[in-house]
């Protein structure tokens, strides 16, 4: 069930990591009707390499040091079960990024004021999502639609950019199942989505996103999980070395937008733990790193942790304003 560990929002911290990759986590199980949740998570990613070659060694999968990037995210999300089968959720990260030369290697993006070694932070993209669980057993099948909407126009031409500043509209599906026959306490869930991404320079660069989660409840309160995420850009701009982009100046639109429209792909692996502190509060921590990529950056280390709190707005309101006399019952004698 809800935070019953697969924690709808308990995995929300992944949004932080995956914000860089544009993917989502799997979410096959929804909160029941009338249940709301609030989650707050912190993420920290450290990227050491670009997947981008050099003149001497060109290739979109060549790992080269072009300076290091550290990004931090604080993501707040709320969700609500409209029915037992329908959930609406919205989240907004505050992101902060920093780039600096590593060992004297690497140069800031020409024309960018952000790559000066300092953190630059701003609210990133609203993520609004509606999920509908079609089938619950034996396999949970939960399609969804989502929109990624930049909260404002922010800098995207920088190693330390907090995002791509692009609108995305996603359609996807989640699958999930318990594994009690194979492994009591185990479960698996997976997600695939197709993102219609705002075109730039009239270049088509939609994305496929996927996620896999294998989980096991070590105890009724403690869950452990293996995580894998990946994404693939359909179309986009292919290049194998910086000089393929032409002049690195603001007068070159290809250069200006290359971080938005690259033919990027990547796979990240990791794991995490979640713990049910109470029947309504879960905490979680995850670790992920990129293991394969083309263009983009390689996340050397990515951590996230946070909590989610489930509540019934109706019960909360009743507790504040509801009846104090339940009516008619005789006095209780202990």
């Amino acid at each position, binding site marked *: 069930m809800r935070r019953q560990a697969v924690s709808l929002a308990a995995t929300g911290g992944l949004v932080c990591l995956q914000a860089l990759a544009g993917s989502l986590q799997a979410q096959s199980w929804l909160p*029941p009707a009338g249940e709301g949740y609030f989650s707050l998570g912190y993420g920290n990613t450290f990227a050491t390499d670009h997947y981008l070659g050099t003149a001497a060694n060109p290739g979109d999968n060549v790992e080269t040091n072009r300076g290091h990037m550290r990004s931090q995210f604080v993501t707040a999300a709320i969700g609500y079960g409209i029915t037992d089968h329908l959930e609406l959720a919205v989240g907004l990260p505050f992101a902060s990024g920093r780039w600096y030369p590593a060992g004297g290697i690497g140069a800031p993006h020409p024309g960018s004021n952000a790559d000066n070694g300092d953190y630059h932070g701003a609210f990133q993209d609203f993520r609004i999502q509606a999920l509908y669980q079609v089938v619950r057993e034996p396999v949970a099948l939960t399609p969804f639609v989502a929109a990624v909407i930049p909260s404002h126009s922010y800098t995207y031409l920088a190693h330390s950019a907090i995002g791509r500043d692009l609108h995305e509209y996603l359609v996807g599906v989640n699958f999930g199942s318990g594994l009690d026959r194979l492994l009591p306490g185990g479960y698996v869930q997976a997600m695939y989505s197709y993102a219609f991404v705002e075109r730039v320079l009239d270049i088509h660069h939609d994305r496929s996103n996927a996620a896999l989660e294998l989980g096991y409840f070590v105890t009724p309160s403690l869950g452990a999980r293996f995580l894998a995420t990946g994404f693939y850009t359909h179309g986009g701009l292919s290049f194998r070395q910086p000089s393929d982009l032409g002049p690195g100046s603001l007068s070159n639109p290809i250069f200006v937008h290359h971080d938005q429209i690259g033919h990027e792909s990547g796979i990240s692996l990791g794991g995490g733990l979640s713990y049910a502190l109470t029947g309504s509060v879960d905490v979680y921590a995850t670790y992920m790193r990129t293991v394969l990529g083309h263009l983009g950056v390689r996340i050397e280390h990515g951590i996230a942790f946070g909590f989610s709190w489930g509540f019934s707005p109706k019960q909360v309101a009743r507790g504040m304003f509801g009846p104090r*006399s339940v*009516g008619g*019952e005789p*006095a209780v004698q202990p």
Partner: protein
Amino acid sequence: MASALFVITLASRASALDIGAVAPDFHIRTLDGQEVWLAEAEKSHRAIVVLFLSTICPYSNYYNDLIRDMAVEFDKKGVLFIGINSGRIETAEEARTHALEHGHTFPIAKDPQNLVAERLGARRTPEVFVLDASGRLVYHGRVASKISSPDLKNALDALLAGRPVKPAETKAFGCAIPRG
């Protein structure tokens, strides 16, 4: 329907009940006025399921149909379900109406002062305590996991088959039982 207004009489207060411990006896008057003594019920049933329920908690309501079906199924096997609606934010009338709407024909009682909840150590809705015929707690926790395991059903099946109940304790998740 045996639901109803409730009143209970407890011998004394205690902290949360441990697995294997004998549940303290209590006496309830159900929403429809029936008198139920736990000790007497234990003598005439193979097991007792004490369920803490709510009319407005989403998690409790999520299991309404499952609880209805299990109560009917296991009643035929000598298991008595007793519903407890603790706290003061839901009225007896609401509990009665809720039981009617969802076909909960097992005894249900209001526990406005949380005396039963305090005695058994219940903190959530839904939360389940399964007692064997001697009144010992053999299972405590959730009704089921949404992902997979039907924990209450598994516990009752094991108990009735004479097998050890595993797991004997799971994490009850849901709404806090309002105190005060």
